[in-house]
């Protein structure tokens, strides 16, 4: 791993060690010195520091990995998992949202409908993709493609990766709330198997708007939350700097979401995050996707819809006349 990979605050020790390592290598080359044992020592130290940092990541550190600029995005996974992806554009009403895309593809040879929130890699693409924040048109396109999938009997696979639906004037004027709400209702009634996978950020209603599925999978470092840690900190702690505390309190990490019954499976990531070895991450996802697709094939018609209804019907914890329910 080159030093430029360590871009996050908490990766500073690794950044420093990598710089030292590079310096030693440079010296060894320039002065024709044998620094083999020194280099090996630093490499061992790097490995130990990696273990130390990555094996006990805090909730807030995981959020930063989920937002890592090199994290694989939806289309990276589509390219690694599928063949013949044909993007289908537009909501047939107003626009084509570049932050929420979709199209047909083949997964292990089987036809599927892909729906994906997509962030941009460089500045130009980031702007074109609106930083992964979909507008009403994106949700309406997603619904159009899901209905298309239903018509032709294709399973739907959605990739969730958004900080949230776009909070702007145009978005409000064209009723992003309605676009999301209709998707929630219609996804609950869609007559084909559906699986979503949180590949990066699961930002509130903007994520849920393509996330009411038979199965919800999540990568180990991804998060899924009702509000961003910064937003929660600003409101409840009156201080955006309290984001690490809010991240912990919200229980937004993959393992915690699995315990709460909100996600069905946590997909392991390569050590240090999916960006260190995207192919490995994709391989783990491929295995899980196939397994869940196979499971869902056994459920048809009302059985599929009843199981989906029950899945969401029982989410939540409350008390009733003194007894706890969940």
């Amino acid at each position: 791993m080159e030093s430029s990979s360590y871009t996050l605050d908490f990766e500073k020790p690794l950044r420093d060690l990598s710089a030292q390592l590079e310096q030693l290598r440079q010296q060894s080359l320039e002065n024709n010195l044998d620094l083999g044992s020194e280099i090996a020592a630093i490499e061992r130290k790097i490995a130990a520091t990696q273990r130390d940092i990555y094996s006990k990541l805090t909730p807030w550190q995981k959020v930063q990995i989920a937002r890592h600029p090199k994290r694989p995005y939806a289309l990276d996974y589509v390219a690694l998992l599928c063949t013949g992806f044909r993007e289908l554009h537009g909501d047939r009403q107003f626009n084509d949202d570049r932050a929420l895309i979709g199209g047909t593809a083949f997964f292990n040879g089987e036809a599927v409908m892909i729906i994906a929130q997509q962030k941009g890699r460089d500045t130009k693409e980031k702007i074109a993709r609106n930083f992964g924040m979909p507008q009403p048109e994106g949700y309406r396109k997603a619904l159009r493609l899901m209905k298309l999938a239903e018509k032709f009997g294709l399973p739907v696979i959605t990739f969730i990766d958004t900080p949230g639906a776009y909070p702007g004037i145009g978005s409000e004027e064209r009723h992003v709330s309605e676009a999301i709400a209709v998707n929630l209702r219609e996804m609950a009634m869609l007559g084909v198997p559906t699986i979503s996978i949180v590949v990066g950020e699961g930002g509130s209603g903007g994520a849920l708007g393509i996330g009411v599925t038979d199965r919800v999978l999540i990568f180990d470092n991804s998060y899924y939350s009702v509000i961003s840690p910064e937003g929660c900190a600003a409101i409840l702690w009156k201080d955006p700097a309290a984001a690490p505390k809010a991240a912990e309190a919200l229980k937004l990490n993959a393992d915690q979401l699995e315990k709460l019954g909100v996600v069905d499976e946590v997909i392991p990531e390569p050590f240090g995050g999916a960006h260190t070895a995207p192919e490995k991450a994709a391989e783990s996802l491929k295995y899980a996707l196939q397994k869940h697709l196979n499971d869902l094939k056994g459920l048809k018609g009302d059985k599929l819809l009843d199981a989906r209804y029950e899945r969401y019907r029982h989410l939540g914890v409350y008390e009733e006349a003194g007894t706890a329910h969940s």
Partner: protein
Amino acid sequence: MSLFSKPKYSTVVVKKKDIPKGLWTKCPISGEVIFNKELEANLMVVPKSGYHFPIGARARIAGLFDEGTFEEQDATVRSADPLQFVDSQPYPERIKKYERDSGLTEAVVCGTGKIHGIKVSVAVMDFRFCGGAMGSAVGEKITRAIERALELKIPCIIFSASGGARMQEGIFSLMQMAKTSAALGRLSDAGLPYISVLTHPTMGGVTASFAVLGDVNIAEPGALIGFAGARVIKDTVKQTLPPGFQTAEFLQTHGLVDRIVNRLEMRDELRDILSALHLRKAPAVAK
């Protein structure tokens, strides 16, 4: 079971907590000063200016249903603390305070009752309890109200008043959006009407789920209705909202709200809409 001593439309028994403090209240639009008793009797609508003050769930229910027909359901469903959430104070402490301040057990009151003889299942939110925020208990009660309509084959009406999702219940709050919307899908499939009444304010996850999914979406005059709040929009995308943005009137002009209805007209409004969609014949007493 009658919960109210005088639940007639025009004379409402309102708890002191439901009304502005003091004996008199000034209308923020006209400056008119109005005796509180008169304001309560008028469902918190200023007679001359038509300004709508917020109204508590119980006062709204008292003014909405035919005398003695409202039966409350699921009153013992209350919030738990699934995440053991603590910010400046533990979540259960906050809940106790909301209970004390509002005299309610949750941010929504549910049940069945008759409006001009038409039986409906209703959920009425109350902004005073945690800003009407939707957590597991609110989501559960609203889902049950929808399922009750389905079971009894009667229409469902939900009065929204909410700042959005309840952060202290984290992802469970978000999932209530899916739960309530899924239930509405079943109600819709069964051909039973769902009337959403959006009142001041209805924001965030409540707007982005059941509140805008009505077969008919009604809003009270002047109600603030939106997804992202003005501050979030300003902080995130540096846009300042034009005046009048996110009001009931704006949303009717922009096609989200079917009708804006004065609270004093709500009973007759619901009678006519439900007579058309559910009974499919003119009401006995034409307006």
